[in-house]
């Protein structure tokens, strides 16, 4: 009975969603002189950045990204608080996987390559698809692989929190530095260079590298906390 009511409700919702999107159409250029055109134009002319998504996330909506990084930080802090244990209750890892010697040597071989790929993705965030969040996640998967393969692999919480707060503080400091030239918070105050160069785009690559370090440290800490959860 309950499932029947739910299916009826969802059918009605699906019908209205389908009707709305059928009328909306697919693939039409909706806004003649909307915010899209101005972003695409200014990305080339003012910022000399190839990837428009990066220029929107870090420059035009940089304040939004600062809020996003704060939400991620709050989530990791809340997770640590919810799973909080007194010191004498924590001990050995609770989630254990038996790994064969093939997995152990293979992950030792793959670990530097994964870290390198992650660093490449967040350093080249303004030139190709990718950026700080994606690259940081790739770096964290490298640490996840090592934590799953080795029982005694551990990461220092002090180093993680240092990297995290360092990156966060420098993000805000780069934002405040925008005031120096009489600009606004997170304004691009550095020379933008030539397009499609590695050193171009002003503060955009620097901020994305900081975001990459911050996300990598936060996700590694999150994985570490959950793996050491004990019943």
């Amino acid at each position, binding site marked *: 009975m*309950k*499932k029947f009511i*739910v*299916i009826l409700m*969802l059918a009605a*919702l*699906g019908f209205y*969603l*389908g009707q709305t*999107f*059928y009328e*909306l159409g*697919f*693939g*039409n*250029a*909706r806004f003649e002189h909307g*915010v*899209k*055109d101005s*972003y*695409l*134009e200014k*990305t*080339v002319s003012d910022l000399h950045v*190839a*990837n*428009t*998504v990066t220029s*929107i*996330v870090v420059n035009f*909506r940089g304040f*939004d*990204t600062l809020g*996003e990084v704060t*939400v*991620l930080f*709050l*989530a*990791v802090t*809340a*997770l640590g608080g*919810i*799973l909080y244990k007194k010191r004498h209750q924590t001990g050995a890892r609770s989630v254990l996987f038996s790994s064969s010697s093939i997995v152990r040597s293979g992950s030792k071989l793959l670990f530097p390559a994964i870290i390198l790929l992650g660093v490449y993705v967040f350093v080249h965030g303004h030139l*190709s*698809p990718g*950026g700080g*969040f994606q690259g940081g996640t790739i770096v964290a998967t490298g640490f996840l692989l090592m934590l799953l393969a080795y029982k005694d692999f551990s990461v220092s919480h002090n180093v993680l929190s240092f990297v995290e707060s360092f990156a966060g503080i420098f993000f805000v400091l780069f934002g405040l530095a925008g005031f120096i030239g009489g600009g606004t918070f997170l304004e691009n105050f550095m020379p933008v260079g030539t*397009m*499609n160069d590695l050193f171009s785009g002003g503060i955009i690559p620097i901020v994305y590298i900081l975001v990459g370090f911050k996300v990598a440290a936060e996700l590694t800490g*999150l994985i570490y906390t*959950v793996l050491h*959860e004990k*019943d």
Partner: protein
Amino acid sequence: MDDKLFEIMQFGIYTASILLILIGLYAALTKKSLIKIIIGLSIVDAGIHLMLVAIGYVKMGTAPIFSPGFEDAAAKMVDPVPQALVLTAIVIGFAVTAVALSLVIRLYRHHHTLEIDEIKNLKW
């Protein structure tokens, strides 16, 4: 891309995103296990992301990246704004899922069950 494929895509992507949203809501409303409810909410998340990116698509558009030699291709590019918003939304969705799963771990530690029917003080 020929027109036939575009016709299929036109209905396929919106239908897929609406179906993902409905499947996720169905799981969140009818399933009893807390893990399955969180999986349902994540599926809703994925459907909404797909829908937002699909709204920004322009017919025969390319990715909003100015590769060398294509610096004047702005007229043919898809809308980058929904893509940037989805980038934000993915991270927020991940954070929400992580906190929800940690709450589930805490509930399991307290009640030794994941079924919401057996957790008495959640009933109303």
